């Protein structure tokens, strides 16, 4: 039953392409999702995250390519492929005239092997125990999101796909979800595929992140890698000085020095920082502090995707 590709990935997107009319919305996207990882799917608004997810779960037909889940093609063996997938696509809309519990009960009937006990378990887990018998109509956005998560993990999927799951959750809820997703991946070997544009979130919860822009995959990187980047000249330092203008004049653009709020910033590693510091002190300026500025994934992401531009 369990079929892993030779490289240990449980899900493969193979040259997935979506064209609507003459527009190419997803362009030849290939991606392997390894087992037991939280995999982030990052991209600015309109880059095609939701469209990709819709194709992965069979809501939209692929123009070209295929998605293979545990050895089954979504195109040709949909029922087998989707059997071990749990998902929330965009907002978790439920039947408003039913209670949260009845919603879960109903979805549980569509997949064999979900006991009432399991339903109670997930209700407890997502923290909806007190309100589960109320009509969904009366739920807040965050509560609906939690119900959506319950619905998605109820049948213990091996692939959990969540489209912007933190949308509408409060900080505590986000944290809980993050911890829970990490736990699912680590302890139960579930592959979690999360899309988001909350970039700082991704850094905290993902093992690996794929970045998509305008329907094209532009990068896949392990989160650990970003920390190593500083040595390679990617780091920046901030200098807190008494006369920033004089300091800038003194440096004359060395090490990419430029004005920053309350001081100046340079680009370069530790050696560069020490050199700049010596220069400033010798020039009679007072240096109150030097801080290393780690380039976060967010900065890198904005750099790569060109900021806020929606394509």
């Amino acid at each position, binding site marked *: 039953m369990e079929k892993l590709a030779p490289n240990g990935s449980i899900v493969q997107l193979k040259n997935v392409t979506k064209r609507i009319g003459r527009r190419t919305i997803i362009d030849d996207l290939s991606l392997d999702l390894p087992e037991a990882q939280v995999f982030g799917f990052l991209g600015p608004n309109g880059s095609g995250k939701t469209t990709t997810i*819709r194709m992965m779960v069979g809501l939209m*037909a692929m123009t070209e390519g295929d998605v293979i889940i545990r050895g089954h093609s979504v195109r040709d063996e949909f*029922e087998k492929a989707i059997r071990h997938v749990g998902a929330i696509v965009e*907002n978790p809309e439920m039947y408003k005239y039913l209670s949260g519990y009845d919603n879960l009960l*109903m979805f549980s009937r569509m997949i064999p092997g979900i006991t009432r006990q399991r339903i109670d378990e997930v209700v407890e887990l997502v923290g909806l125990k007190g309100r589960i018998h109320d009509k969904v109509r009366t739920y807040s956005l965050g509560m609906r999101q939690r119900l959506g998560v319950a619905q998605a993990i109820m049948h213990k999927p091996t692939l959990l796909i969540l489209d912007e799951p933190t949308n509408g959750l409060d900080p505590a809820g986000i944290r809980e979800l993050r911890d829970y997703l990490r736990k699912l991946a680590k302890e139960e070997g579930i592959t979690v595929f999360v899309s988001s544009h909350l970039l700082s979130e991704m850094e905290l919860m993902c093992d690996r992140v794929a970045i998509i822009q305008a329907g094209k995959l532009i990068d896949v990187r392990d989160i650990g890698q970003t920390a190593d980047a500083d040595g390679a000249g990617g780091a920046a330092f901030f200098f807190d000085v008494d006369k920033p203008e004089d300091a800038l004049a003194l440096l004359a653009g060395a090490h990419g020095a430029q004005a920053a709020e309350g001081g100046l910033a340079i680009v370069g590693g530790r050696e560069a920082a020490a050199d700049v510091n010596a220069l400033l002190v010798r020039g009679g300026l007072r240096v109150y502090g030097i801080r290393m500025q780690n380039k976060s994934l967010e900065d890198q992401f904005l750099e790569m995707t060109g900021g806020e531009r929606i394509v």
Partner: protein
Amino acid sequence: MFDFLQLVANENLKIYRRIRTWIMFGILVILVLAISLIARYMPGGGDGSGWSMMMTETFLLFIMVTIFTVVVSAETVAGEFTSGTIKLLLIRPWSRSKILLSKYISVMLFAFALAATLFVLGFGVNALLFGMGGAREEILAALGTNRDISPFSYMLAYYGFEFISLIMIVTVSFMISTVFRSGGLAIGLSLFFLMGGSVVTMLLMQLDYAWVDYLLLIHLDLTNYLIEPGFELRDGVTLGFSLGVLAAYYVLIIAVTWLVFNKRDVAT
């Protein structure tokens, strides 16, 4: 198979957990009771046979059954798109065809429940208030038939034929709901079909072209065939012919509905 029944059970749940549904049943029950009670106790009323009262009520209220079912049918697919729940429904290990079939079956079961309510209540209430006795010939004449069958069989046949028309109209509504994802449009068009149908039919029947025989509209009232054995709606248009035309349209409507639902990109 057992699992598929679970899908139907889910669809039933979606119908019967809504207050709307019970209001529909309530209206039907109240109308039957009201019409019979008024007929029984109004000044100058009170005689007449229970059979003809049942017939009158059926004539008036079966349209109600059709309208209510059209409303439920129009909502069943379009509603899932409007609310966005279609996304959660379709990402289960079931083919779209089966999910759609479970919806269709639940709508038909609802229609059957309404029609059965009308039949049983109409029979029961009128039997109590008026009695179902009387000379058979007289009763059959009052019901408007020359056939020699028991009044009960006649009523059953009448319901059967009405139910065939209902299936056609409700299936059209189901198709519009699926194709256009708009419940309002589905209700509007199918009711126009139902109401406007009889007027247009009368006009069409005047036309002496052969193609008129193949129009769906003129075959929607099969109860005409109950008037007498061998009745012909138009020259050469027998009950068998009508049923054949209806069957052809039915297959076509169902095919379009399933095809569109299976191919549709869900992007709500």
